């Protein structure tokens, strides 16, 4: 099955790459292989689809603009897409295959931290640059001793930052002093976010009155939600993926838990509105960018993405697009088509003005310095509320 999807997606990508010559310029031939690991099946297929869409779009744009100039010769990018099924083992297997069999120059993805952490380990030991667009868990770019990995970077902010942002927003904007948390103990990003939120919220004088867990695949949260309701929180944090959040919101409402809900960047897929309907109204969440942001780069990206795929790009799409452009600059700056030069050139690209804001890797760390935005679900749409600077 996965093989089938993989083959179909490869065919689609190949067709997309081949059917390019629409602009005046002659597109560069795709001879630089870049691996993409996306969650095309499994619990969060919308994340993988956004990632693949944005990747295709970025690659087409780069190739149509003449590719990357190295030693007077133009090189285009060619995508090799692998499905991780949003599972840790398959993400690791996909990374192995891309590095050893396909011999890609660099890897983009996986997005979910659960898969990004093992894939990052493999890329690190094989000395291949891996850029994860969306994995916010601090462990992705750190090795087992807590030192930064050398070959793994991300395009997004980390959960340490997100924890601070959420705690600050809950305190200052929602005026909450007691918070309840329900999170998936078996999934890296939600678990990290819940723990870091708790740390920051309590450091600031707040109290987490209920800290409840479940495991991936659970659909019944009634016991935990009843417990949270009994603890009487002012707000409830649900740092879960879009497949779980709708059920949690709906069950909370059925149990008469009516306090405001707060979510993390795991909410950002528009699927959440489709799946949760009216239950999501009024909830706040933290995000990487806002499609309605008034700046030229974001505006241009949103317009072209909408034209191609008929929907507004979510943050995974925006971050994937930024990842590819960071990679393009690194390849060009390195001036050589080997894995080490690409990695070495990354710290020389300076500040990249991306769709999701300014990205740079100044000190050799894989975590860029970025801000976050807070959004609200209002009338079935994501509404920008405020920018939060965690410092």
């Amino acid at each position, binding site marked *: 099955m996965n093989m089938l999807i993989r083959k179909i997606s490869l065919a689609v990508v190949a067709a997309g790459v081949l059917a390019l010559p629409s602009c005046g310029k002659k597109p560069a031939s795709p001879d630089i292989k870049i691996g993409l690991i996306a969650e095309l099946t*499994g*619990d969060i297929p*919308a994340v993988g689809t956004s990632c693949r869409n944005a990747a295709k779009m970025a690659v087409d744009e780069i190739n149509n603009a003449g590719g990357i100039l190295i030693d007077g010769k133009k090189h285009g990018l060619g995508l090799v897409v692998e499905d991780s099924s949003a599972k840790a083992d398959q993400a690791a297997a996909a990374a192995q295959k891309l590095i050893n069999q396909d011999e890609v120059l660099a890897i983009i993805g996986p997005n979910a931290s659960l898969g990004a952490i093992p894939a990052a380990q493999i890329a690190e030991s094989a000395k291949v640059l891996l850029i994860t667009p969306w994995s916010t868990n601090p462990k992705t770019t750190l090795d087992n001793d807590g030192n930064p990995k050398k070959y793994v970077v991300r395009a997004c902010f980390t959960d340490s930052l997100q924890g601070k942002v959420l705690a600050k927003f809950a305190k200052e904007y929602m005026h909450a002093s007691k918070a309840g948390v329900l999170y998936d103990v078996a999934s890296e990003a939600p678990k990290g976010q819940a723990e870091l939120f708790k740390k920051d919220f309590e450091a600031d004088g707040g109290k987490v009155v209920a800290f409840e867990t479940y495991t991936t*695949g659970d659909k019944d949260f*009634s*016991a935990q939600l*009843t417990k949270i309701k009994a603890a009487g929180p002012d707000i409830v944090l649900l740092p879960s993926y879009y497949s779980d959040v*709708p*059920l949690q919101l*709906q069950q909370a409402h059925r149990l008469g838990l009516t306090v405001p809900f707060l979510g993390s960047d795991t909410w950002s897929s528009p699927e959440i509105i489709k799946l949760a309907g009216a239950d999501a109204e009024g909830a706040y969440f933290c995000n990487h960018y806002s499609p309605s942001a008034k700046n030229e780069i974001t505006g241009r990206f949103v317009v072209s993405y909408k034209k191609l795929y008929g929907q507004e790009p979510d943050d995974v799409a925006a971050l994937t697009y930024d990842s590819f452009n960071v990679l393009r600059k690194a390849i060009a700056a390195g001036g050589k088509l080997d894995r080490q030069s690409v990695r070495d050139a990354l710290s020389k690209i300076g500040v990249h003005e991306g769709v999701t804001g300014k990205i740079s890797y100044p000190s050799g760390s894989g975590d860029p310095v970025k801000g976050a935005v807070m959004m609200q679900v209002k009338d079935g749409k994501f509404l920008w509320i405020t920018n939060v600077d965690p410092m």
Partner: protein
Amino acid sequence: MVYFAQQALNALQLGSIYALIALGYTMVYGVLVMINFAHGDIFMMGAFTCLVAALFLKLPFAGALVFTMGITALMGMAVERIAYRPLRNAPRMSAVITALGVGLFLENATLAISPYPQRVPALLKNTTWNFGGLAVSSVQMVIVGLSIALMIALDLLVRRSLWGLAMRAISWDRDIVPLMGVPVARVVSTTFAIGGGLGGAAGVMYAMAYPVIDPSMGILVGWKAFISAVVGGIGNIRGAMLGGFILGGTEIFVAAFLPSTYRDFVGFTLLLCLLIVRPHGILGTPSLEKV
């Protein structure tokens, strides 16, 4: 007290869904001594059929329930006819493997159509009543009430009707019963139809209670229902119901009074201890033959 009552209601809702699915496992085992591992996926197909009934056929709740039960009953029969009947006299392990294969086929066929989780529109208008802090929802009441009604109907069918008598006779001795003029193939087919229908009904209830459904939802819920059937005594219909409520209750109450991280650990340890004391399940009868 209100807290306890609320958790008891939660347990009742979860337990009745486990119990309905567990019935499908136990009926097939009772008649054929075979574990129908595809049953969890028939349940999943039930939830998706309900989605189709609601979205495209615009059926009301009762219509969707009957439609879904009909379709999944046919699926149960088809699975038996295509995948199990040709292996009736093969080693039992072959049938178990075919069952797993059928389950994988159903999952991946649904996955091929759409891997996205889907929202099932509310077929029942939900009202939540508040009794001094105790939240009771009408959907919850319908689910529990309908499940119990279906279980009672099945219990009566198996214990009182001629078909029920035939089913029990086949489970007693499959070689002798045909000599008495019992059409074994048809009775087995009916068993699968009833099991599939109940699985479909569970799918509809599930889609009402947890309205986000996906193609892999049958795996975990299916396993839990299977465990319920084993705990209650596989092959025993009242045991399956009891097992469903016991598993639902353990899951809810462990999470309610202990840190929720311990839920599955404590819950399943309790069930294991129960099986050590009663290896054939609570209402099961010892037999020498097991898969």
